[in-house]
């Protein structure tokens, strides 16, 4: 299946055109994307550290995960919106970019893992970090790191 026509269509949308024609829009949206990365990273790491048995160890894993969740969800929404805007301004470049494909395939895995696996394990976890919570924490860090690093690399390759 050739996806290129879809990428061409996305690049031709009004959002894509507006961003490409502006000197400021791309950098500003990109900066907001980075602020989203910061908040998302913090809200992910504070839970993953806890699941690894570090960080806020005097409080239940479920409690830290519950507290971090709204900030994670909010940051994720900002990242997806700004990410879509950046992507639609250079969709065809992305189509030929290996890092983009790494990112775009890892991202749904990371999101699915966060909501369907990590959320559930964390909700049922108490004071003790177990082998299971440690593996989940490490996988979470590895997945989000891959998404972030591949995302940055889109600009280099």
């Amino acid at each position, binding site marked *: 299946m050739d996806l290129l026509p879809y990428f061409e269509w996305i690049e031709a949308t009004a959002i894509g055109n507006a961003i490409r024609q502006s000197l400021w829009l791309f950098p500003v949206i990109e900066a907001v994307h980075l602020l989203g990365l910061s908040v*998302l990273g913090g809200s992910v790491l504070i839970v993953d550290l806890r699941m690894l048995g570090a960080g806020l160890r005097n409080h239940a894993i479920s409690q*830290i995960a519950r507290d*971090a969740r709204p900030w994670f969800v909010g940051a994720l929404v900002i990242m997806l919106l700004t990410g879509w805007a950046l992507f639609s301004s250079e969709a065809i470049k992305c189509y030929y970019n290996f890092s983009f494909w790494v990112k775009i395939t890892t991202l749904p895995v990371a999101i699915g893992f966060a909501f369907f696996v990590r959320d559930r394990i964390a909700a049922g976890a108490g004071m003790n970090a177990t082998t299971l919570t440690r593996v989940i924490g490490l996988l979470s860090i590895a997945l989000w790191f891959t998404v972030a690093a591949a995302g940055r690399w889109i600009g280099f390759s």
Partner: protein
Amino acid sequence: MPRVSILSFLEWLDSHAWSTALHESLYMYPLVESTHVVTLALFVGLTVTWDLRLLGWAFTQVPVSEFARRILPWSRVGFFIMTTTGLLLFYAIPVRNYQNIFFRVKMIMLVLALVNIWYFHRRTERSVSGWDTWTTPPPAARFAAAASITLWFAIVVAGRMIAYNWFDCDIQPQSDFINWAAGCVVPPAE
């Protein structure tokens, strides 16, 4: 006698073979740059969680002193990586960074952010035993947290903008203000 200035020192640094090598390397520069950016998640991310606790917006059941003890060491690891990679990025392109308006704004805000941290630990935090378990810490602590988030966010934005050359000295004419603020050396008009 040559005029000794920051600029002449950075021009000398710029002529270093290692500086040029890092700037022009195919993988090292992007790797250092990516490390700098991805570490935002660790440094700014955890700093923001700490600020949220001080604002009383998240992790309110965790005593403030405990949050500081358990999370700030990780934040400091992030700051160390940020500083190391940041210095390398500066070293790779010293003159261009020094004469970049966004870099200068970033450095000023970085100093303000560090003063804010110093003042909090030196003064505000002294009374923490009195409000350690409060859901919403006192105004001075909340002010420090709000200033922290504002400054670090502005630093991230300014840092990203360094990459753009809109106000670079070698793109003239620029306004007098930009030439002054960026420290451009512009030959007087004929």
